[in-house]
């Protein structure tokens, strides 16, 4: 499994898509952080989630994970991948772990950069700043969400082999369906993975994700629901992959 994990991480690092999307994630995260730090006046209570959740890596790792698994079909590299790793379940598990690990590391690096930039600007403006312990906790929660969404993106990508359809589908789910659900049926919407569950885990107030009426799940329960989503999508994807003839 270690060898497969290493191979998947190497695959991820050796494409321009990864470098480009990572660059965009770093750029947008720092831009949001700078704009919020410069233009708003957060209070001691709100500063942690107003400024230090600017890390956008979770969104980009979802896209990278979908590209990573659907690209195997698109470029027909799935054949050489499965010749090297004929146990399809292990192959899928290694890929899932690789994108979870990539999400974790990417988010940690970006969140640390955001923390440094945010602290410098807030201090310069004599605005309240969080305690170091609070800041570290927030960085870890951001990374936890990125790791979970990396795994979820990979598992969802196993269900839809068509790359554009999979990416557009997830974006529509995250930016159209979930907000609509949160607004119209908050009791259902609070189980939405990309907005409500992520906010629960990051401990972002419901109002910040447009879910004023939703009673968000506790962070622990949100993690369990997210793991259930990942497990379900992974199980269905694994069954499909094991049954599929590669001709």
């Amino acid at each position, binding site marked *: 499994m270690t*060898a497969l994990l*290493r191979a998947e991480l190497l695959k991820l690092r050796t494409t321009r898509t990864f470098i480009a999307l990572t660059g965009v994630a770093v750029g947008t995260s720092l831009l949001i952080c700078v704009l919020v730090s410069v233009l708003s006046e957060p209070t001691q209570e709100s500063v942690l989630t107003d400024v230090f959740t600017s890390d956008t890596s979770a969104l980009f790792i979802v896209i990278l994970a979908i590209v990573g698994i659907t690209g195997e079909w698109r470029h027909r590299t799935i054949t050489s991948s499965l010749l090297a790793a004929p146990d399809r379940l292990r192959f899928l598990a290694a890929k899932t772990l690789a994108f979870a690990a990539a999400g974790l590391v990417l988010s940690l690096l970006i969140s640390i950069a955001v923390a440094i930039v945010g602290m410098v600007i807030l201090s310069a403006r004599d605005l309240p700043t969080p305690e170091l312990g609070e800041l570290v906790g927030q960085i870890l929660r951001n990374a936890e969400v990125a790791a979970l969404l990396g795994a979820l993106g990979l598992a969802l990508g196993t269900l839809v082999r068509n790359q554009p359809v999979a990416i557009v589908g997830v974006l529509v789910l995250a930016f159209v369906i979930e907000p609509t659900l949160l607004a119209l049926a908050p009791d259902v919407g609070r189980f939405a993975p990309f907005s409500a569950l992520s906010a629960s885990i990051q401990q972002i107030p419901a109002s910040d994700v447009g879910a004023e009426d939703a009673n968000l799940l506790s962070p622990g329960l949100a993690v369990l629901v997210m793991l259930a989503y990942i497990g379900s999508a992974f199980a269905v994807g694994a069954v499909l992959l094991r049954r599929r003839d590669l*001709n």
Partner: protein
Amino acid sequence: MAAVTTAAIEIQDLSKRFGKVQAVKDLSFSVQAGRVTGFLGPNGAGKSTTLRTLLGLIRPNGGTATFGGARYEQLPHPSAHVGAVLEEASFHPGRSGRNHLRVLAAAGSHPESRVGEVLEQVDLAGAADRRVKGYSMGMRQRLAIAAALLGDPDVLILDEPANGLDPPGIRWMRDLLRAEAARGRAVLVSSHLLSEVAQSVDDVVVISHGVLRGSGPLASVLGGGDGPVTRVRAADADGLARLLRERSYFVEADPSGALLVQGAAPEVVGEVAAEHRVALAELVAVSRSLEDAFFELTEAAG
């Protein structure tokens, strides 16, 4: 007691159906170490399906396909035992040739030093750091062969490896196959063109419509095994045919009335005719090319 040798590849009663199409039916053959075996048949004969089933990429409906008794997915270290080049070898276009091999080396737990070695072996070291999307068909094929050689495997499987290669490339590939077999490896190479592989194979397996048409040493399957063929026209054709059949030669008449004698050279037929004072109007050796035999085999049963 005779020594029992285990075939490097053993296909036994293999069958695969895609919907209403019977791609492979009750196919059985084996491939021995140290020999190049040509897997021949026209397009759509079931060659790729057989090879992909052997490599665990397609699930058979019946039968087995094994390496030394184990299915591909049961091998403890598959890419160190079997190297494969499949038709339409595909690569991520944005990744360099070297990085493609590095990924496969990592997945197969092969030392990274093998990447440079196989790149040298396929003469691709100079282009190794270029992105694959800039490679020609021939370069992609060489990269695929490099990938197959990464694990220094005992068995090499190549599906239509000459596709996309120019004449020097085809010659290089033939030399490679012979060299690998000389090192004791079992080499199974598929082709729909007999001429591509006739010069480099020891054995052949011929299939058509998913069914085995013949297997064994090249000469015995596609000519040579039946011996020479002679065409003879005689005044007393029936009498000469009877005399030859008494000597156990297979004789048949063609539509023009000439006799085709299998297994007898013209000198032998001439001697029989002279001995019995049968006047001859024509006596020639018939050349039956490998291609003729191949077409006869593959077109015989539809």
